[in-house]
């Protein structure tokens, strides 16, 4: 009932869904044109069409990144396709807006023509038959990151356009490294043992009483379960495998960090904003966060890249180099009006394609469109051009393990995995016991998602 002013209430990626507002149902088009339009796919609508784009956190006149990039995107689009008018609908962040979204799309069977969404939600809408399949050519299919494409596949069909892939990695405070006499990882590569040793050395109390902690993460990911090769489920997304020996030993490595007390005492309730604030205040030497924090550090005059901060890969252990990651999507809503649907696909393709980055860079003042690395190869280059740290991030897509995409994932995650993880990290259960206890419920939810 209350507002959500300052707290990012949900995990970063869940917070990446688009914005919801309610629109009247579009008038029904004739079936004939509908088939023709979806066949031609990319054909620009000849007659003027007006479509609605829902973008969360779009506030007309404000300076938020979403507002600036959205306005710029519409402006650039208008120059290329003057026939198609885009109206942006905005709304605040948080699960309340997701509700608004669900109500409009699932209950009212109406709403946006084009919208932003995330992993679990995209499948929810697909299962409800509310998404129109992107008409992708084979070349385009190959252009998209395969794991991102897989994450948007429902019953063998791609149901939305991958927009960007957001990897989690380590931000390091170089001043603290120097102070504690720790060498930063060369080229950003390190092993778990190296990270552990560094975190231990970086946990110290200054003469003035200030306590520095070596390592922290916000309460929103399970990266360490991947470190020895553990994965939530098998390749077919049929069998739950997060209780495998590899996953258990990954959790053990995580627990070791907790037991060594290199993390702040409230690490179990640390939210993303707080963890960033602590890093900015020099309380934390290594912070595991996604790419968005680059802009935060960049905007702060006390922080200079390469001088007092840098980024490094998620550490490597028994498994291959990996990173925890999530995907954002642009989806097109299924509807009768063929012209609107075709225009919506065209716009979605533009929003996720290679042209928009350079288009926005050419505007005065130039606008950075990509807030995270693009989901397709042909569009990926430009993200790295924005900033040297982003150049490093752009390379992480290759090994990033995209957030499990199952329509029941948020339930598996929040209801079962998080309490189990907490119990292990607090030392109330052994990692094996904690992960074994989750298995039957997780498998049941996985089966439900596959029904």
């Amino acid at each position, binding site marked *: 009932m209350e*507002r959500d002013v*300052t707290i990012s209430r949900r995990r970063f990626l869940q917070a990446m869904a688009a914005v919801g507002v309610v629109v009247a149902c579009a008038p029904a088009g004739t079936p004939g044109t509908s088939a023709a339009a979806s066949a031609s796919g990319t054909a620009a609508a000849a007659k003027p069409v007006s479509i609605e784009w829902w973008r969360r956190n779009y506030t007309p006149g404000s300076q938020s990144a979403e507002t600036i990039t959205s306005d710029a995107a519409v402006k650039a689009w208008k120059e290329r396709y003057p026939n198609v008018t885009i109206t942006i609908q905005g709304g605040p*962040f948080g699960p309340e807006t997701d509700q608004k979204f669900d109500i409009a799309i699932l209950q009212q069977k109406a709403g946006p023509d084009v919208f932003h969404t995330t992993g679990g939600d995209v499948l929810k809408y697909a299962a409800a038959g509310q998404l129109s399949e992107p008409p992708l050519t084979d070349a385009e299919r190959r252009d998209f990151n395969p794991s991102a494409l897989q994450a948007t596949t429902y019953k063998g069909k791609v149901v939305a356009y991958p927009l960007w892939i957001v990897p989690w990695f380590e931000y390091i405070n170089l001043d603290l490294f120097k102070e504690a006499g720790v060498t930063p990882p060369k080229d950003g590569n390190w092993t778990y043992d190296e990270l552990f040793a560094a975190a231990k050395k970086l946990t110290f109390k200054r003469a003035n009483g200030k306590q520095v902690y070596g390592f922290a993460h916000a309460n929103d990911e399970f990266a360490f379960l991947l470190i020895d090769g553990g994965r939530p489920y098998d390749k077919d997304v049929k069998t739950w495998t997060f209780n495998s020996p590899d996953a258990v030993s990954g959790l053990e490595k995580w627990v070791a960090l907790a037991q060594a007390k290199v993390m702040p005492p409230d690490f179990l309730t640390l939210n993303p904003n707080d963890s960033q604030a602590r890093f900015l205040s020099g309380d934390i030497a290594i912070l595991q966060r996604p790419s968005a924090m680059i802009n935060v550090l960049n905007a702060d005059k006390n922080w200079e890249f390469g001088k007092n901060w840098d980024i490094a890969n998620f550490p490597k252990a028994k498994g291959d180099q990996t990173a925890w990651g999530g995907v954002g999507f642009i989806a097109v809503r299924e509807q009768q009006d063929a012209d609107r649907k075709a225009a919506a696909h065209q716009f979605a393709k533009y929003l996720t394609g290679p042209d928009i980055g350079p288009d926005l860079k050419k505007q005065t003042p130039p606008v950075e469109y990509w807030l995270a690395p693009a989901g397709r190869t042909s569009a990926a280059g430009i993200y790295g051009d924005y900033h040297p740290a982003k150049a490093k991030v752009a390379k992480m897509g290759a090994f990033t393990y995209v957030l499990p995409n199952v329509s029941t994932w948020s339930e598996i995650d929040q209801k079962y995995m998080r309490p189990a993880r907490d119990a292990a990290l607090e030392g109330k259960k052994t990692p094996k016991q904690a992960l074994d206890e989750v298995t039957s419920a997780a498998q049941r939810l996985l089966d439900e998602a596959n029904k």
Partner: protein
Amino acid sequence: MSSIRRRLPVHVLLLVAGALSLFPLYWLFLTSLSPTQYVVRVPPEVVPRELSVGNYQRLFETTPIVRWLVNTVVIAGVITAFHLLFDSMAGYAFAKRRFPGKDVMFWLIVSTLTVPAQVTLIPVFFILRALGLLDTYPGVILPGLADVFGVFLMKQFIQTLPTELEHAARVDGASEWQVYRHIIVPLSRPALAVLAIFTFQRYWNAFIFPLVILRDPAKYPVQVGLATLQGEFNTDYGMLMTGAAVAALPMIAVFFAFQRQFVEGIRIGGVKG
């Protein structure tokens, strides 16, 4: 003199408790007046090192905060006005009058107080859609009038009022409406003031209903508007805190406007002791 000395411990106790309770408000205004670079300082600072109105400037320049405030005044104001009228009428009937179905109606009202908004949100949305009230002010206001805390409050209060005055007025030939208007309403002033303050505050802070019902950002009330300041990739804490501080001011004004009405021990004449 001696009374002051006797009361001193009471004053100290109350002041300490009050200071503790006021701390979040102090922190809010303090943060809003901090230069941006100090806003996210860890640990937060209890005493400021420097003050700045920069956040206020940015808030008023880059957001339609005035529009949001006006919207909220309209929404919360109309809801409050109707609640004062309807709740005192219903509260009077439930407290003082006997009529068939009274107990059933009252218990329905009290029992549904417990239902969280999350449960009624979707059905309410459909009802408003059927009425064609989506994306309108009436669509936000009407469901607000259905909240029944106020009926319960007024019933409990009016129940404590003496019945003799009503009887006397009826004997003098007053109509039922006149009894309500000239006996019940004046005697209920303290409770009406409380109701006004509570209701205004409740709808001043309303978030989820207006968010789901309104589509046009120009109609957003302040809490929905402020929530849009929270970014996907970065949140401007200074501006958010400043927005919250600005949003708190009208509620403070409403409190002071109505609290005078808690008249010093309303004199109730002709009451048996």
